[in-house]
């Protein structure tokens, strides 16, 4: 890992309970390190994640938001991640249209067996966001401490 030691981006990771959260647990069990910048919020399914939550995270100073769910076809609720895929495709495209760096948002499908992928994804995402620097375009200055 080579993250700029002064600047530590804040990363919010939404993980679905059935696949990605379990994948994160597996990464932990296997002692696969990923940066401490990543903080996970557990949701039942990736389709629970409202675009509002993502914008809220940015508003409150997050530098990157990643959403993890079951692979398409493997959703515990059969179709949740298909809706997620459409919602996020449109949201991310809109953020890009508004001039927000497209690298700050990501959707990754991580199964309960993919602990290594979870850790690798978080490493990569953190590096990518760190390279962009602080999120200045979306944060709400009132929320800064």
């Amino acid at each position, binding site marked *: 890992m080579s993250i700029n030691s002064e600047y530590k981006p804040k990363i919010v990771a939404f993980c679905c309970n059935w696949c990605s959260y379990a994948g994160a*647990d597996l990464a932990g069990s296997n*002692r696969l390190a990923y940066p401490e910048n990543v903080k996970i*919020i557990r949701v*039942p399914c990736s389709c629970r994640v409202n675009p509002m939550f993502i914008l*809220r*995270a940015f508003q*409150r100073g*997050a530098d990157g938001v990643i959403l993890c769910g079951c692979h398409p076809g493997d959703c*515990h*609720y059969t179709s949740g991640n298909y809706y997620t895929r459409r919602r996020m495709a449109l949201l991310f495209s809109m953020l890009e249209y508004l001039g927000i760096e497209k690298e700050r948002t990501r959707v990754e499908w991580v199964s309960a067996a993919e602990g290594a992928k979870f850790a690798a994804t978080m490493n990569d995402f953190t590096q990518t966001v760190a390279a962009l620097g602080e999120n200045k375009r979306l944060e709400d200055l009132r929320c800064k401490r």
Partner: protein
Amino acid sequence: MQRIGVFVCWCGSNIAGTVDVKAVAEALRSEPGVVFSTDYQYMCSQAGQEIIKEAIKEHKLTGVVVCSCSPRMHEATFRKTAQAAGLNPYMVEIANIREQCSWIHKDMETGTQKAIILGRAAVAKVNLNAPLIPGQTPVTKRALVIGGGIAGIQTALDIAEAGFPVDIVEKKPTIGGKMAQIDKTFPTLDCAACILTPKMVDVAQNENIRIFSYSEVQEVKGFVGNFNVKIKKKARFVKEDVCTGCGICTEKCPQKKVPNEFNLGMDNRRAVYIPFAQAVPKVATIDADYCTMLKTGKCGLCAKVCTAGAIDYTQKDEIIEEQYGAIVAATGFNPISLDKFDEYAYNQSKDVITSLEFERLTNAAGPTAGKLLRPSDGKHPHTIVFVQCVGSRCAACADKGKEYCSKICCMYTAKHAMLTRDKYPDTDVYVFYIDVRTPGKNFDEFYRRAVEEYGVHYIKGMVGKVSPQGDKLMVQASDLLANKQLHIEADLVVLAAAIEPDKSARSIATMLTASMDTNDFFTEAHPKLRPVESPTAGVFLSGTCQGPKDIPETVSQASAAAAKVIGLLAKDKLTSNPCVAHADELMCNGCSSCANVCPYGAISYIDKEFRMPNRTTAIRRVASVNPAVCQGCGACTVACPSGAMDLNGFESAQIIAEVDAICR
């Protein structure tokens, strides 16, 4: 304001090795709502749980945060602990500081800081938690099986054997389905009737089973454990309880020109008929489309000859309403229509037949009494060409065929070829195939026997064209391995038509709010782990309505579905997960977005009167979630434009509070 207790677990050195647990407990003490904070070596141990229980009582805690291992590990444990101390179990949240923190970070400073933030998020969430109470619904201990083929029969028998009443609804006059039409079964070659009809008799004799034959499901309301179903019993103009099945009416009826659907129209039956000798129930049915009496009021011969007095020309359709706890879809399959496959001349020549028609031609109870004779002239065919994958694996011809493999054709064709060569050694048999697929117990051995012992000519390649010339069928085909074109003069061409779900399945799926794939096969709740359950709770899948299957697979799936039904009916009450969606009626627009994304059909709409400004009222359409059906995915909460829909345990405000706590 909540009174929250924070309990930081050391997990021995698992957590305490890289997280300063005392510092975490100390830091979280100053979070809003926290009135108590402590740490302990093993929170999940008896002693640890006692600490939690005592603190709940002593500090009158309304919420608990346990900073420990993953909630997937011990959330249930700590919820029980809280419950034992009189706290609602859903007032407990876990901060995962082991898997997500101590195990992946090496540095004490880093681990501690992160653990504090994770704890903070959990505290922020608990501040907004509300007690949740699981709902309980009673279970009607009766099952409905839709479809009376081998799948439905097996499911019904298994459920009935376990002691629960079962109703079978079959749209045809008899149960038995496709298996009753089949001659022999692969790979053992035992006769289908010999193994099926005893099961049909078992069904008829089982006290727990009722058969609604010549009936259709008309309406399904309710939800798991409590379905209310309307069944339409079509008028058969014969009193079922009076008819003895003697068959005299079916011999005397003067209307002889009715295509016999049981023999796929290859011979005729009378207007009053019993589909086949072993039909269950063995009761005559009058075909209203052909009966002279019903059409013109003149005839009445069957009533005259019926000594039992069972004929009743005034019979009307009857609607039966019944309650069920579980419903099994066993709606089965049909070969696809070959109208669009002009290249095989199916509509041009009587001697181009489908494999199912071939079954009837070789069946002793069929139109030719089991002799293999050409439908056109009744002569014995000397050259037979079997064509595989007619409409199966047909990605390029999606307008007329199916993209999927129909799975059973390779094996039944091997059976047909082998049986033909066995009975008529003077017959040349060709099989044209793309691949021969034989995964199954003794399947490949069976196919090898057809090739090696019975001398069936298997040719890799597709038939391009079949053209009738005189009394012959000219078959043009390619042999891909020899790389040459073949011209075969055949007497009979047998097409292995793809199979598709029965046409009635779509409307049944809609009634059941069960989902289907693009091919109209029912979808499973999970393709690997819940293969016999529909995503809709209380609806189960049996047989080919879920995907192409042979008989052994169908029967094992049917029994699996029965086991699931028995497991459900054995319960007196269903306890539902309280983390379900709920709509705020005051905010709901009634727009149906939520119902459209709900994979379980848990959302319905009611018209409700609301008070409006200026002392007026208005009736508005609002969503209502059935907590017994909702599984709590939350898809509806995002689809809802007004935010009226929220999810217990994962409310928007709770998730936003976590976001805020993390980003603080």
